[in-house]
């Protein structure tokens, strides 16, 4: 027991020593307000997963009072229900104004910031036998491509609502297109990458990211039928670290990166 405590103390000293040298080198501020120190729990729309993961380290380095950030991704609608029902999260990132509104209306948050927008695109598996036939959303129907398997997000998820807007503008019913409905855009992307689905309507940002894996390709949706979603962020409490995460995400550093590297649109 005593030995273990000694080891632990040694480790703490070693870590803090390392911390000190590291911060001296890069001149990073240490946490000025020890009482605000803590970790942040973020519930976020799954389309933000890649960008958040890539910027995780930078955020932690710039914010020494934040000990860690844990993310839980899913459909904004599902996450909103969890928050309204008391999920102990610090920050909510929603892919639609409507779901953010349910959280604000419940009193869990008072303030929200629009920090990005995202349009839709058709994601097609490259190995699919229909890949060369797809030019726009009208080619996703069973009647134009018999045997094609297409997925959409559930209508209640923001990515599903976006797909519905587009299909409506194109005069196509959801039923004529979809073989299955995914609970979140992440799920839909992976089913297309696996080749179990030929195509699906996903966010432009997801398709840009997935395209790098070289298993799928993106087909733009014509401007006259395409639409876009707003991304909103809100702190769910008055903790300083929660606000720091919100400020970081809505800062120009992050939002310009979202546009230049991840295929999001300006808010």
């Amino acid at each position, binding site marked *: 027991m005593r030995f273990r405590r000694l080891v632990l103390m040694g480790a703490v000293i070693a870590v803090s020593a390392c911390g000190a040298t590291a911060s001296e080198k890069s001149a990073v501020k240490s946490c000025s307000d020890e009482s605000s120190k803590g970790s942040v729990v973020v519930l976020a729309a799954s389309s933000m997963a890649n960008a958040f993961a890539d910027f995780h380290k930078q955020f932690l380095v710039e914010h020494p009072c934040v000990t860690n950030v844990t993310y839980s991704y899913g459909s904004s609608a599902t996450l909103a229900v969890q928050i309204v029902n008391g999920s102990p999260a610090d920050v909510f990132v929603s892919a639609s104004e409507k779901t953010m509104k349910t959280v604000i209306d419940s009193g869990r948050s008072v303030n929200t910031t629009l920090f990005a927008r995202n349009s839709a695109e058709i994601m097609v598996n490259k190995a699919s036998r229909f890949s060369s036939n797809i030019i726009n959303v009208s080619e996703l129907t069973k009647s134009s491509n018999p045997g094609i398997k297409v997925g959409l997000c*559930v209508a209640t998820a923001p990515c599903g609502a976006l797909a519905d807007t587009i299909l409506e503008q194109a005069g196509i019913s959801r039923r004529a297109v979809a073989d299955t409905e995914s609970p979140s855009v992440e799920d839909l992307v992976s089913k297309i990458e*696996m*080749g*179990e*689905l030929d195509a699906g309507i996903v966010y432009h940002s997801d398709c840009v990211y997935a395209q790098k894996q070289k298993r799928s390709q993106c087909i733009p949706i014509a401007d006259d039928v395409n639409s876009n979603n707003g991304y909103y962020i809100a702190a769910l409490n008055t903790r300083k670290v929660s606000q720091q995460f919100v400020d970081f995400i809505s800062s120009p550093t992050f939002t310009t990166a979202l546009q230049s590297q991840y295929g999001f649109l300006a808010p």
Partner: protein
Amino acid sequence: MKLTRSSSLLIAFAVIAAVFLSLPLVAIFIRVPWSDLGSMLSEKSTRDALLISMQTSLIAALLSCLFGVPLAWLLARSSLRGISMLRVVCITPMVLPPVVGGIALLTAFGRKGIVGQYLYDWFNISLPFTRSAVVMAQVFVAIPFLVLAVEASFRQSGRELEDAARTLGASPSRVFFTVALPAARPAIVAGLALAWARSLGEFGASITFAGSFPGRTQTLPMAVYELVSVDYRLSLVLSLVLIFISVGVLATMRDRWMVGR
């Protein structure tokens, strides 16, 4: 029974267990919007899910019976070496997390699956996200229940009668249909009911392998799951329907499960 301190403690624990088991069901009964029940049940999405659930689970139960009874007979009667290993494999889906079953089915019968790729390339058959996939997932999780119940019955009835029939000149298939099968009838009925209940409640394997689309592959449990975040009241109504059907299944097996009444 005399109430000693230890027995009253036992009773206290038993009461806690009973309340814990019944309270959630009672809660649904209390919260179900009874006044809107009729209109909610007649909604198209509800009827679609109910219809698909009924259709797929009944087919799955019958298929489980059609293939499960012979399998149970083989497991009970064969003295081959690997038979106990085969039994373990056949019963595994019963303890497997259903979502793992779904991934396993996708890996085997999906478009890129080890068998599915040939089905797709040679015969243009794509199983995932179809109603057949729903049935397959249900059979996969339900068949062990039937096999276990029926195999136990085959073992219990022993092979003496079958041997007697055989020495009297009956062919193997005649022995099976006129001697073994009638003796196992109660177990087959119970196994069928269990398999049906399991198929009806199946969620994890089917949503993974068959996806979910209203009116096509969305069963009642999938609808309940999706509605929780959208229309809680309607999900309560659908849960109530599932509870009624489950209780109905128990009632058909009352000889086995409601002993002493």
